[in-house]
């Protein structure tokens, strides 16, 4: 079964504008969190359009944030934006599938520290504020992302 999935993953087409990545097994479990129930939170984020704006703005904030911008240099930001939108949509109950890698695999050997994550969270908070997501709804997404620290942060 795993072999078949791996085979399927290996033959996944590379979406336009993205670079190929090493084969991996596509699975919603890679998103690293169980989706919320209902679609109230998805509405609070203004659905697909809102999450699209938040992720675009988050990636822009990260790549221009002197604390963490170096980490994003030379990375496939087209893929990052697509998979982040999928991940947030999946977690927020927007009904998407997440097709990216697991948080452990995606951040392997980056040597990320807790302070890098705090910087990213602050940028995400700004992006959500700018989108007009209510503070309580922002915290519900952050509550889902926070435990991923154990997989993304190495030191």
């Amino acid at each position, binding site marked *: 079964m795993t072999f078949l999935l791996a085979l399927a993953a290996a033959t996944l087409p590379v979406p336009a504008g993205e670079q190929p990545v090493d084969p991996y097994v596509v699975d919603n479990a890679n998103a690293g969190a169980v989706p919320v129930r209902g679609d109230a939170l998805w509405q609070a984020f203004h659905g697909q359009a809102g999450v699209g704006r938040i992720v675009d703005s988050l990636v822009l904030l990260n790549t221009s944030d002197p604390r963490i911008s170096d980490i994003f240099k030379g990375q496939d930001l087209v893929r990052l934006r697509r998979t982040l939108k999928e991940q947030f949509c999946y977690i927020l109950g927007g009904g998407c599938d997440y097709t990216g890698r697991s948080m452990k695999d995606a951040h392997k050997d980056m*040597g990320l520290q807790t302070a890098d994550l705090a910087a990213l969270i602050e940028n995400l908070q700004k992006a959500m504020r700018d989108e007009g997501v209510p503070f309580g709804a922002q915290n519900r997404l952050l509550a889902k992302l926070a435990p991923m620290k154990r997989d993304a942060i190495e030191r």
Partner: protein
Amino acid sequence: MWSHRLVAGLLIPLSMAAPARAGEWRGGGKLLLATGVTTIEGAAGGGLATWALIAGNETRNGIGGSAHVTQVQLDDFGLTTFGAAIGAFDRIEVSYARQRFDTRAAGATLGLGRGFAFSQDIYGAKLRLVGDAVYDQDRILPQIAVGVQHKRGNRDGLVRALGAKSASGTDFYLAATKVLLDRSLVVDATVRMTKANQTGLLGFGGDRHGGYRAQFEGSAGMLVSRRLLLGAEYRTRPDNLGFAKEDDAFDLFAAWAVTRNVAVTAAYADLGSIATVSGQRGLYLSLQTSF
């Protein structure tokens, strides 16, 4: 020319020996308010309740710290506290605070003299045992820490005459703190083994009870923005002294992270009866800087 090469020759092996910024120490890195504010006893916490959070803005990769000054203006008394704390690796906290309790006009009524003051030095240490109050959002386990506060008062003869066994003593506590992010709540529950009368300002132990007793202190707050926490606290006290009743204390507070490095806490505090003078309520104001 050669000096460039020399520098490059020195730097390249160093940077290659250290992949991906390994071993890099940094300051900062805690989210706003995740450092708590400072209690009247100098530890990271709320105002009355000591929390399991470690002082300073550092993460496990660095060292941080804080300094504070607090003024509590009660109906008949004033309490001023100032001090500083160091947090190392988000694991260990050491703190110092000096409390000064001014009896103001009541000092004359109590026969001590107008403006008579009790002071004490508080040396604290706290160790985070398990849990991460902020990031462990998929676990029920709170952040748990143990700590000690060694307190040395300056009125040995007087507090003994009032019935206390000593002007100095040591409190031991176990604190559990959790941020419930999906509800924007912050909760803490702490058990303190103590003999202290009025946090130690009126000495330790008394004619009614001499030994250690477990007391509870706790806070519950709501994050209304990433900068503002509104909440309430409760603290039980031992009531060891025969001459003066000691009541439980509570407060309603607003802690505001003005910037990454400055927090202001304002509270309405009710400390009950102090040294026979009942109904001591008033305004609590605290300024903290952290890095």
